[in-house]
């Protein structure tokens, strides 16, 4: 029997086959395929399930210490240039494979419930399988170029899924924004890849790192150029992992169905940027400057995301900004030269954030029974409240997620976030301080979300408030769905089961990465794990850990007082006193407006001007010359009578005559 790593290429291929089959079915036999929705869903689940099983086998092999496997074939070649493609299985990849297949599988099961009334059910499952396939392909890519290929493909899937409900204007704009902003990052990534290939003649991660070190030492590539290339490559992860200032697409991407927000825009695809930086660790570790830039970008993102999350009223947007903030933590870890810590946070975050998003989906699903399918209403926390009693599983799992992300021991988030903060404290103390404060903000906004949604009284039936919210969003009321007499109830098993399953790792997985005995580090890099365990000292760990726990508890307490006990009215205490801060935050640091003014309007204006030039100047010159050569308008009229082929004949005849003449003279 072949080892699992030998047939690991099946992991991305299986869901791809499923997606292609059902995609072709949708195009060719649309109605039949839609009628067989259950069978299609089961088939796709089976494909993905098989991938998941294979991934676990691969992970088990890697845990038992089997060396990494790499298989390549020549994909393109010309001249002396040869471009190999293939797949590689190593510990980092094995971890990611298991993570992605697990969450994708759970999200698929969840979608069966969440999308059950949607007429695009089969299409949704097809996209899900396509995305899983691309994401898994990205993970097993052995070189930068293949990563780029799958990088674009996951971006495409994200585009398709954000724009899934394409009849909504918001979704249409969000999908395009997501793709274009990501392309801005890819612009840098592509140039960086090209430049690195020029400098090192390699696309391979280790090859690039070694080649660049050598090129710098021989002087064939100046240091600043190498630095620029590294930063250009980093633009890709900046866009994909929603780092400031390219994070703007992620909150908008919440227009997609909620399972997608959980899978793509929280757990897996957005983590691809962090994953790429981890893959490039041999390269980046040579350049402390690059590390510093990454760390600063990560810290800014981390703070920015958390600060905006403080004022969000939309449940999903709140979680989205929280994701932005957590991705910032991961980047901070990468910049501190601690890829293991970053990857660990990626794993823990994937579990609890997927659970939180799926939980929010469960809430929205229930809210839609009351307020209708208008996302402005169904996702607004001002209309929620008191859902805990009606939705016990959702609220319990959401609560677990909140504790996990806030960093309360022994849940997952504590171990991974504390590891990052500890690394930052040793490397960049200033950045640690910001990250530390952000931890408090995180605890506060998460519990704010929890209390507003699940505690207090239910406010969803307040029609005046609904109208007010629609007015604020500048949306016209749709009379067609005026009355919704539904009641809030817990979601069906296919939605609660994934929540319950995800709650387990959210609570416990942190224990794999306890700093004095980290099995996670041991898998990724055994040498470093030993070093970590040796250099571990309680004297260093305890003060930092208790400080983080303390600030989290402070954040939670504030939220309890403000939103549960209602002892403090934050609107009065802070928002009214410092209106500028409040507007600054609720306008999302004005970044969307700046973007719109400069880039969107600017590019439109530029394009219109170029078109003007094209029509008036370039074409004008042509038409003018046309007139001049023809001698008069009379000639032009002649051509417009439809007999201009005569002209061609004249030329043609003239040519023949000339040829004949030369022919005679020549011989």
């Amino acid at each position, binding site marked *: 029997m072949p080892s699992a790593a030998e047939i690991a290429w099946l992991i991305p291929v299986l869901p791809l086959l499923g997606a292609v089959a059902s995609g072709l079915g949708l*195009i*060719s036999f*649309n109605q039949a395929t839609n009628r067989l929705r259950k069978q299609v869903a089961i088939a796709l689940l089976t494909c993905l399930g098989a991938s998941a099983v294979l991934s676990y086998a691969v992970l088990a092999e890697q845990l038992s210490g089997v060396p990494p496997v790499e298989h390549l074939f020549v*994909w*393109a*070649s*010309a*001249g*002396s*240039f040869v471009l190999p493609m293939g797949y590689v299985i190593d510990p980092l990849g094995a971890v990611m494979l298991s993570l992605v297949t697990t969450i994708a599988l759970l999200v698929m099961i969840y979608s069966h419930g969440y999308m059950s009334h949607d007429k695009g059910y089969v299409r949704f499952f097809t996209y899900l399988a396509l995305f899983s396939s691309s994401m898994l392909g990205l993970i097993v890519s052995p070189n930068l170029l293949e990563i*780029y*290929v799958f990088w*674009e*493909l996951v971006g*495409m899937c994200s*585009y*398709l899924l954000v*724009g899934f409900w*394409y*009849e*909504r*204007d918001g979704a*249409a704009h969000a*999908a*395009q924004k997501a793709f*274009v902003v990501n*392309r*801005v990052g*890819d*612009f840098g990534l592509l*140039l960086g890849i*090209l*430049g690195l*290939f*020029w400098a090192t003649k390699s696309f391979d991660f280790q090859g690039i790192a070694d080649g660049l070190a050598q090129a710098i030492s021989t002087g064939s590539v100046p240091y600043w150029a190498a630095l620029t290339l590294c930063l250009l490559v980093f633009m890709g992860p900046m866009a994909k992992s929603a780092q400031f200032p390219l994070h703007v697409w992620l909150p908008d991407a919440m227009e997609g169905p909620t399972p997608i927000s959980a899978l793509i825009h929280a757990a897996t695809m957005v983590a691809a940027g962090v994953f790429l930086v981890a893959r490039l660790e041999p390269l980046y570790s040579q350049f402390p400057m690059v590390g510093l830039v990454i760390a600063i970008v990560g810290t800014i993102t981390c703070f920015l995301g958390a600060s905006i999350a403080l004022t969000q009223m939309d449940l999903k947007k709140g979680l989205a900004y929280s994701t932005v903030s957590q991705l910032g933590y991961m980047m901070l870890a990468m910049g501190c030269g601690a890829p293991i810590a970053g990857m660990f946070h990626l794993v823990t975050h994937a579990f609890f954030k997927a659970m939180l998003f799926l939980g929010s989906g469960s809430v929205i699903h229930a809210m839609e029974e009351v307020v209708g399918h208008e996302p402005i209403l169904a996702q607004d926390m001002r209309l929620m409240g008191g859902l805990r009693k009606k939705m016990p599983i959702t609220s319990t799992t959401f609560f677990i997620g909140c504790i996990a992300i806030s960093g309360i021991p022994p849940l997952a988030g504590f171990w991974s976030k504390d590891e990052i903060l500890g690394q930052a404290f040793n490397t960049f103390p200033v950045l640690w301080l910001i990250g530390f404060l952000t931890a408090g903000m995180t605890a506060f906004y998460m519990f704010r979300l929890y209390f507003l949604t699940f505690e207090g009284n239910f406010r969803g039936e307040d029609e005046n408030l609904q109208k007010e919210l629609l007015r604020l969003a500048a949306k016209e009321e749709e009379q067609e769905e005026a009355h919704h007499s539904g009641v809030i109830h817990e979601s069906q098993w296919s939605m609660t089961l994934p929540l319950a399953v995800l709650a387990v790792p959210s609570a416990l997985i942190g224990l794999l990465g306890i700093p004095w005995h980290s099995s996670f580090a041991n898998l990724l890099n055994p040498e470093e794990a030993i070093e970590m365990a040796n250099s571990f000292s309680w004297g260093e760990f305890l003060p930092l850990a208790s400080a983080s726990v303390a600030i989290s508890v402070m954040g939670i307490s504030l939220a309890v007082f403000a939103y549960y006990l209602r002892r403090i009215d934050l609107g009065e205490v802070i928002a009214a006193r410092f209106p500028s801060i409040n507007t600054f935050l609720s306008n999302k640091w004005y970044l969307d407006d700046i973007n719109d003014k400069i880039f969107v309007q600017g*590019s*439109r204006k530029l*394009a219109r001007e*170029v*078109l003007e030039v*094209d029509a008036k100047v*370039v074409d004008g010159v*042509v038409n003018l010359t*046309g007139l001049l050569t023809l001698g008069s308008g009379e000639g032009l009229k002649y*051509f*417009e009578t*439809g007999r*201009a*082929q005569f*002209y*061609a004949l004249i*030329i043609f005849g003239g*040519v023949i005559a*000339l*040829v004949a003449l*030369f*022919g*005679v003279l*020549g*011989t």
Partner: protein
Amino acid sequence: MTEQVSTNFPWLSLSILFPIVGAFLVPFIPDEGEGKQVRWFALGIALVTFLITIGAYLKGFDPSQEGLQLSERLNWLPALGLTWAVGADGLSMPLILLTSFITALAVLAAWPVSFKPKLFYFLILAMDGGQIAVFAVQDMLLFFLAWELELLPVYLLLAIWGGKKRQYAATKFIIYTAGSSLFILLAALAMGFFGGGAPNFEFTHLAEQNFGTGFQLFCYAGLLIAFGVKLPIVPLHTWLPDAHGEATAPVHMLLAGILLKMGGYALLRFNAQLLPEAHAQFAPLLIVLGVVNIIYAALTSFAQRNLKRKIAYSSISHMGFVLIGIGSFSALGTSGAMLQMISHGLIGASLFFLVGATYDRTHTLQLDEMGGVGQKMRIMFALWTVCALASLALPGMSGFVSELMVFVGFVTDEAFTLPFRIVMAGLAAIGVILTPIYLLSMLREIFFGKENNQLVSNANLVDAEPREVYIISALLVPIIGIGLYPRLMTDSYRASIEALVSRDVDAMHTLIQPVAPVISNFNLSPALISAPSI
């Protein structure tokens, strides 16, 4: 007077003459006037032609050889030095296949044409043979004749079946192309008569000639203008949006799928292959023009509100990569240029077909008058999305591979100075951002959002019919096939391109004086400041 040199089966002559003979039979096909019978006949001829070219490729063509194959030679008019010399190497063979493939699909796309169907199919089939001839002939004079003959069917197809401004567009097209092809004639005569003696226009003969650098530069400049109109190169492009804007869908497919490729092919065949020293001088200019094409046309496409013109400008933008590839002096980049031509032939044809199919339903091309039609036309929406993604060079499809090859080839080649490469690659990469902006905005404006009530009430928005799905699928098979495994295509011309590029590189190395005085005031472009460094 006539003597057959080649003893092999005349695959290429057959593939040129068969559709032309078929075209002349069209008037004799009994038809009730709506084209219901004659279209089957035309489709049959086009399919058989496609099979003949496939036969030529499989039976008579060995991709591992760099030289001319399937040669046939027949002295036609010895007094003029005119020879019926056809043959195929790696440069021509893929394009011959592309031509017969796209033409067969265009005939299928022309199914609903009911106005003067006989004349229509006559012209399409005549064009098929003429276009194969352009790629297959091995004699420059013959090439010129084929090139000119090509204009008449296109002109008529535009002028009779076009849109409202068809006369203007057709006239503009003919003036542009016919006018510029005078340069081809002049260059051909100059090259054929070079060195005295009997005129000889055969490529093999011309390739052995030792043209002086100054002579090469003049010929090169002339040919660049002629082929630049066809490709097109900004600012010689303004015929294209008009012609494309007025053409019907099948003609449109031919224009974008094949006609533009004639320019790229001729640049490779003549400028790069026959005039290597001038090519070394002009290469930086080609790169700059390529970058201008990419950015300028992408911006104009973004601002266009007319769907057809938008896609037409996107074609111009994509042709920029062909220019960069040809000017790149690397086997990889030139290979990429070749692949970009094939790839755009397929993708451009599919997009233009979809434009036509959409117009049939909406009866408008103005984006402002569309919106939300995705709900009524789901399959159409899916086809559009796939083709638009292919056009914006999504990996897994052919456009990505070709653009990547051009990029890598250009950046890694030492022919140009580093700053020049950095600036040009950086600017060209802006296209990577601009392309999705205009293509995705276009999709959004047609299909996304709320239904445009006025449109929905006026137009009959039926979803794609099987014939349309079939045409797009047929185009997508090679698009995705090449995207997944590019060697399917690149291996068929690899040897020829490598031979061509190594000749160019040799010429570049033997250049003693980098910039000839004749040309120095011709090129005001800053590109020549960083002329090939040796």
